[in-house]
């Protein structure tokens, strides 16, 4: 369960719990991550244009 939680949280990148658990293991090789928007208006426009739903994260 702890590993699951770490995965779920590290998905959210900078979440402290994810980072803390990640520190218990050797540093992983560089893995590219996806860009995230930071403006709701931009995301709504991008969703309309692409037809994709929006995944909104608050932290």
């Amino acid at each position, binding site marked *: 369960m702890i590993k699951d939680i770490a*995965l779920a949280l590290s*998905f959210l990148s900078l979440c402290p719990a994810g980072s803390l658990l990640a520190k218990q293991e050797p540093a992983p090789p560089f893995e590219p991550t996806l860009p995230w928007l930071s403006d709701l208006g931009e995301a709504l426009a991008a969703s309309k244009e692409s037809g994709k739903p929006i995944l909104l994260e*608050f932290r």
Partner: protein
Amino acid sequence: MRPDIESPIGKLQQRFVRLRIVNMADVDVGLFDFDFDTTFALFVLNSEKNIYLRYGGRVDSSADAMLSSKGLEKALERGLAAHEKWKSGDLELPPPPDPRPAQSFPNVLEVVKKNQCVHCHQVGEGKAIELIASPGFDKKTMPWVYPDPAKLGLEIDPDDGVLLAGTSGAAAEAGIRAGEIIKRIGEYPALTFADLQHALHQLPAEADSVTITTDRASRQLSLPRYWRVTDINRRSIGHRMTPFPEFWGKTLSAGEKSKLGLDPDGFATRVTKFWSNTHGKQAGMREDDVVFAINGETMSPLAINAMIYIRTHFETGDEIRVRYRRGELEKETSFKLRAKPW
């Protein structure tokens, strides 16, 4: 541990427009209403601001007991499926809630004026302050937020979010069984555990029953007394309610209480800090003392610990009689409660 873009979650992420908000200052918290005492929250929505689902939520046993990578994958898959249904005009959505700017909470506006970042918990504090100040605020019935479905006997599989791993109590009495998948609570559709909690949170205070719709049937469930009660010790509302207990402490586990010969269902609490010369400290209490009775009472269905018992059962200015253990000794003292420690 960080999943790369080729991992299952990474692949799912790519099918969304990804938006991360770290400052609540300009957020419509009427629309994006969630449990602001949580570590994080996710929403899946469309370009018309229709929300398909929430992901997150917390329960008393742990702030992240209901989070898992499998559960997250399922939530994202369900969000994508809901979006496809919406695009084909085949998705019924509840009407949008009234808007509420985060800055309409005075404490949030103060943070914005200082040019600082507004955190989720500060919105939670704003809501707590507003609730406590509302006319007729009843500290025994109104402080409970985001109830735990387990209180209704709905044991949810965290790797799914709406699949019942087991049922007991009110849910079992209503005929709901393990293996059923919850689809709706009252009028609210549910795709995740956070949706379930949000739906329960919306039920009016006077509600005595709720309709639970699963993949098998809709059934009326009688709401047991105290079903909304959760541990508010670490929630904004629990910190904001007065009076201040005059000490801080750690809730003892049932095992720890039994070992000390105390009622395992009681609110016994080990004192951990005073921080300042509080009335509790002035009255002789010390760190490591175990408070087990207040005015002769040792338990309450409303209080997981002595601090919450004091906040929910007394008012500023009241004098309380506290019984506590110090090692083998049993002691008693009295002191007056204040609104704040300083």
